[in-house]
């Protein structure tokens, strides 16, 4: 049937000709990379984004006025040419900087293509051939052996002990066995399909290729991931908002003063030059670079705390996160099975599940425990890799599957040297676990020399084990297994199962010496020994336990107003149990089902709104409309999504985003990558994570620890606060740069500060104090605030703009003007002389310009004085920050024309004034929260 469907033959394979035909039709078996925007386009985008367009306009105006002046033969037209060049350079350099930052974080498809297997063993023309995997076509017969990467989606037709590792695709951590049987409708669940790019762990298999390239499951996920639009990060939106605001101010003031200067009968050309000056003064050229530098400093700090940030803007995103959708396995849990509970003597004992357990606290005095521990130790094929004696038990590498490993480690912790015990109880026969028997059995000699009996130990699915037992051990004595005891067993089994734990049953039987003497030949095929009427000893349950740091981290997230949602591919019961133990579902809250159970009413009649928690199954999610999903997300504060598919994860993330939330997603598998990409911030696991997940993510947790996210949130919030300070600082400067222009135009005084000097401040000296603000310490309540509301708590709000522009900015300008007048007065030009002097001052022809004392100045001497003024003005803009004790040496070095030392003192009263004013502002805000002052002065 299959042969027919795919037009092939199982024994002979396709003919080469036919294969070539199909290859021509379907294309090669590889993932198509996404259509990349050409690099040049990306680069040009950087060149016109943000303030760049304003600066380009400025540069264009400079060149136009140069052209006009040059044509008119004016004396020094080159000033404008240079200004234009400098402006263009500024734009190009900041553009290159931004482009470089962006280029670092765009290589998602790279890892998908890395996963493609190089060679595949194919049957074609009735011959086995090695072919490059991208030559595979639908219908090809492929042979796979342990260790191979699966070359395409394959329908298996012959298997032998084949297991595949699907972890990168579905997130299941254990290897899945594969057979030829069709077991499930869902292709992801069925046993007879092996998926492209997964790994065959052991065994061999032969199969028919059913999908190639982009049509494979992973191809679909890949296209899903790259198809997901990467929305703007919150900080990008904030900065855009800021750019609009500043650009609006710049343009309106520029145009206003253009009109004023034209109506004051300035020449149009001069007015244009004023316009350029106003634009340059208003635009914080260095700010975007400063933001990048601040972010990367924070990113560095976070990297030290095991959060590797790939996309710089993600640093802040984490701070504004309001919902975290966390994967379970590996993130919240330790990703290894551990014995959590034991049941013997009709009692449940808890075991220690922490990461660094060395002893087990439960009562070990019972005879039953002695028997149980013997079974646990002996009926186990797992072994430690040799040479790890010095490592703690939990850190040792084990050969064997997950549950056997758990049992081995458990036994090692409780009993000591397991390998020695095994050596003393020599194994004589063994039946390994298989899915039809559902048990594992071995027969041992005992270490008691007087006891010549053999010991048969067995473990397996509890109900199967119980079926084979006729007695049960209570307090070391065998008692008949009556219905009462069976009931007790059922209760315990249900209870452990209800905690989402994997339960195993253990039983044993001492074989009578007379029937089974020393030399008895045990044959595991014919089973010439009893496998029923055994003695039931106890149950052990295992779980992948939560990391010890997680509950604390979750509660911190809670107090920081972040909702933590668990999204997992695991079973609802396990998911819920883990959610409860880490606090995602808090102790007091109930799901609808819990309430129904408590009130003893059908689920439908429970008021859904009263349930704070919800566990949603992937199947239910499938049938939900978007409104229903929104309702779930809205009404329940504690949500667990279980059994979810990659698409569903995406839907959940989108649902959260529809609520206006900033969503962080953690994940490790390929299956998570679309959701990681879609999330406002995707967080991948560094150790367990697949490359695809790491590539799709904005951030990688190097230690796979959820608690690191909390650190990240704190850093993110801190950087937001600090960026606010940076911007307040920068905007303050803008006014002090702008005022000189306005007064220059209106009062016709010599130019207090030049355009190039402004650029020098913005791009040079301003950056370091701004960056220094990134080191500011966090407020004490930073982790007790709610996450900021995207639409309300803006980076730049009215108060911040008003405070920096109209309060501090004006104060600084006044201080700067005092200095300006001082410089001129001390050189001979009293303030009264300066007013209205502009035209003669700037005339090249007047070289005997008289000052207030009767001295005469050449044009160049005046210009030189003007530069001294620039320098003084420039220095004064830095002085207020000197009083804050910042960067003293730095500013001394940057004064290119050393001004007289005493000019530095002129602005000191103003520096003190600004400092006092700001402190008083903060004091009042602290003293009178909610007052008029608070509302108007807090930003």
């Amino acid at each position: 049937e299959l042969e027919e469907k795919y037009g092939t033959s199982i024994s002979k394979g396709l003919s080469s000709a036919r294969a070539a035909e199909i290859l021509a039709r379907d294309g090669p078996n590889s993932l198509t990379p996404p259509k990349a925007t050409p690099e040049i386009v990306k680069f040009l985008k950087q060149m016109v984004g943000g303030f760049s367009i304003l600066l380009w306009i400025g540069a264009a105006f400079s060149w136009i006025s140069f052209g006009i002046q040059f044509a008119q033969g004016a004396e020094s037209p080159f000033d404008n040419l240079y200004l234009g060049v400098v402006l263009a350079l500024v734009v190009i350099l900041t553009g290159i900087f931004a482009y470089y930052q962006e280029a670092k974080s765009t290589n998602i498809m790279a890892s998908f293509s890395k996963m493609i297997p190089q060679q595949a063993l194919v049957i074609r023309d009735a011959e086995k051939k090695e072919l490059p995997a991208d030559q595979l076509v639908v219908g090809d017969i492929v042979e796979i052996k342990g260790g191979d990467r699966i070359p395409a989606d394959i329908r298996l037709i012959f298997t032998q002990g084949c297991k595949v590792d699907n972890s990168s695709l579905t997130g299941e951590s254990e290897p899945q066995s594969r057979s030829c049987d069709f077991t499930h409708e869902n292709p992801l669940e069925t046993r007879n399909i092996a998926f492209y790019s997964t790994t065959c762990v052991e065994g061999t298999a032969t199969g028919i290729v059913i999908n190639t390239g982009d049509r494979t499951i992973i191809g679909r996920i890949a296209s899903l991931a790259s198809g997901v639009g990467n929305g703007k990060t919150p900080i990008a939106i904030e900065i855009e908002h800021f750019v609009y605001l500043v650009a609006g101010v710049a343009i309106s003031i520029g145009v206003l003063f253009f009109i004023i200067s034209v109506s004051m009968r300035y020449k149009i050309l001069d007015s244009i030059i004023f316009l350029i000056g106003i634009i340059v003064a208003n635009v914080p050229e260095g700010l975007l670079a400063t933001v990048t530098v601040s972010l990367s400093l924070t990113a560095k700090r976070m990297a030290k705390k095991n959060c590797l940030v790939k996309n710089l803007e993600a640093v802040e995103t984490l701070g504004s996160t309001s919902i975290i959708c966390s994967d379970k396995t590996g993130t919240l849990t330790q990703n290894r099975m551990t014995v959590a509970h034991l049941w013997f003597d009709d009692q449940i004992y808890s075991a220690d599940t922490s990461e660094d357990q060395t002893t087990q606290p439960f009562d070990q005095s019972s005879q039953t425990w002695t028997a149980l521990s013997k079974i646990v130790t002996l009926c186990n094929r797992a072994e430690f890799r040799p040479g790890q004696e010095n490592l703690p038990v939990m850190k040792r590498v084990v050969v064997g599957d997950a549950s056997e490993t758990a049992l081995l480690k458990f036994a090692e912790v409780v009993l000591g040297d397991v390998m020695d015990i095994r050596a003393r109880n020599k194994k004589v026969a063994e039946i390994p676990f298989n899915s039809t028997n559902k048990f594992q059995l071995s027969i041992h000699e005992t270490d008691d020399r007087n006891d010549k009996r053999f010991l048969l130990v067995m473990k397996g699915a509890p109900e199967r084990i119980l079926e084979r037992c006729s007695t049960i051990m209570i307090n070391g004595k065998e008692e008949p297994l009556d219905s009462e005891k069976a009931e007790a067993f059922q209760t315990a089994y249900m209870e452990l199962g209800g905690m989402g734990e994997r339960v195993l049953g253990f039983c044993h039987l001492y074989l009578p010496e007379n029937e089974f003497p020393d030399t008895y030949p045990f044959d595991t095929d014919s089973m010439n020994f009893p496998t029923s009427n055994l003695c039931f000893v106890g149950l052990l349950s295992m779980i992948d336990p939560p990391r010890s740091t997680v509950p604390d981290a979750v509660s911190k997230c809670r107090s920081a107003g972040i909702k933590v949602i668990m999204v997992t591919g695991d079973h609802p019961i396990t998911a819920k149990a883990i959610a409860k133990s880490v606090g995602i579902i808090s102790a007091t809250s109930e799901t609808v089902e819990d309430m129904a159970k408590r009130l003893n009413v059908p689920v439908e009649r429970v008021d859904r709104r009263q349930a704070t928690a919800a566990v949603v199954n992937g199947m239910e999610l499938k049938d939900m409309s978007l409104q229903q999903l929104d309702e779930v997300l809205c009404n329940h504060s504690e949500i667990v999504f279980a059994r979810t598919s990659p698409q569903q994860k995406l839907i959940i993330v989108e649902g959260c985003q529809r609520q206006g939330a900033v969503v962080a997603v953690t994940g490790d598998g390929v299956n998570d990558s679309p959701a990681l990409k879609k999330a406002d911030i995707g967080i991948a696991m560094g150790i367990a994570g697949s490359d695809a997940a790491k590539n799709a993510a904005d951030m990688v947790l190097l230690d796979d620890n959820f608690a690191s996210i909390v650190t990240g949130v704190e850093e993110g919030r801190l950087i937001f606060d600090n960026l606010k300070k940076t911007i307040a600082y920068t905007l303050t400067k803008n006014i002090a740069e702008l005022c000189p222009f306005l007064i220059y135009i209106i009062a016709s005084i010599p130019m207090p500060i030049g355009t190039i000097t402004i650029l020098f401040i913005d791009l040079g000296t301003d950056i370091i104090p701004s960056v220094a603000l990134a080191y500011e310490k966090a407020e004490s309540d930073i982790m007790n605030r709610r996450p900021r509301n995207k639409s309300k708590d803006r980076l730049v709000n009215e108060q911040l703009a008003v405070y920096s522009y109209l309060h501090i900015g004006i104060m600084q300008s006044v201080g700067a003007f005092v200095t300006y007048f001082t410089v001129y007065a001390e050189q001979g030009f009293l303030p009264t002389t300066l007013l209205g002097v502009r035209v003669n001052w700037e005339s090249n022809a007047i070289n005997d310009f008289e000052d207030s004392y009767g001295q005469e100045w050449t044009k160049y001497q005046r210009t030189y004085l003007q530069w001294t003024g620039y320098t003084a003005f420039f220095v004064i803009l830095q002085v207020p920050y000197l009083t804050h004790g910042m960067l003293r040496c730095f500013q001394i070095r940057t004064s290119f024309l050393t001004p007289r030392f005493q000019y530095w003192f002129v602005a000191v009263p103003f520096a003190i004034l600004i400092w006092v004013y700001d402190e008083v502002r903060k004091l009042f805000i602290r003293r009178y929260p909610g007052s008029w002052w608070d509302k108007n002065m807090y930003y």
Partner: protein
Amino acid sequence: MGSKTWRELAGDLKLFLWNREERTCMGRTATSWGLILLFYFVFYTCLAGMFAFCMYVMLLTLSPYTPTYRDRVSPPGVMIRPYLHGFTIAFNVSKRSTWQPYVDSMHRFLAAYDDKVQEEKNIECVAGRYFVQGGHEGEEKKACRFKRSLLQSCSGLGDPTFGYSRGQPCVLLKMNRIIGYRPGAGVPVSVDCKVQKGNESDLRSVDFYPGNGTFDLMYYPYYGKITHVNYTSPLVAMHFTDVKRNNLVPIQCSLKGEGIINDVNNDRFLGRILFTLSIGK
């Protein structure tokens, strides 16, 4: 969010300007506006007061007679007269209207140097040494006479056209005033002219007055316009008696003397001056 229609935007704007329900204009109620305006009034008044105070204190520190620093204004720059629009003196001998403005400019400038005026206001000083006047800083200082007649054939007394009518123009050169400056360090500063970047023979002869084209030491130092009220800058007249006609002749006249700098590239008026003579028939 999405984009809003213009109508909605207009509605929002109207609501922003005047919200009837909350009685707010531009997001603030009357009391709120009152408070904020009061705040800014007080704030800016205080700031203005502080500005005024600082300026007042700063002005108190200044001497009314001598500026605190004089390093940007020295060494002296140089200017010429006649000065109309630029540094090209171009005229046709035969056309009076082309040179009359220059002549008028010269007469206007030299009015302050009229012998009568000088005799009336200023004193005769001892030539050849600096005229240092001690005493209190605020005392009025005497100024030395610089009579127009010292310029001889360029004085405009004998030839009221300063030679322009004959194609032999006079150009006056003056050194910028600097308070307390003593040019030449004991040796009078002299003036020399030559053709700049051109045929040397275009400028065949120049006569300098007074003397050999020197600024006599007795006119220095200058004490500032408050105390040195009648000070008149000494001049050197350059009589270009033989300049190539119908040609643009670029001329550079520079000061020579101790402490004079005349070769700064950026400042073409520091210790020298460049101008062009263009004399037509």
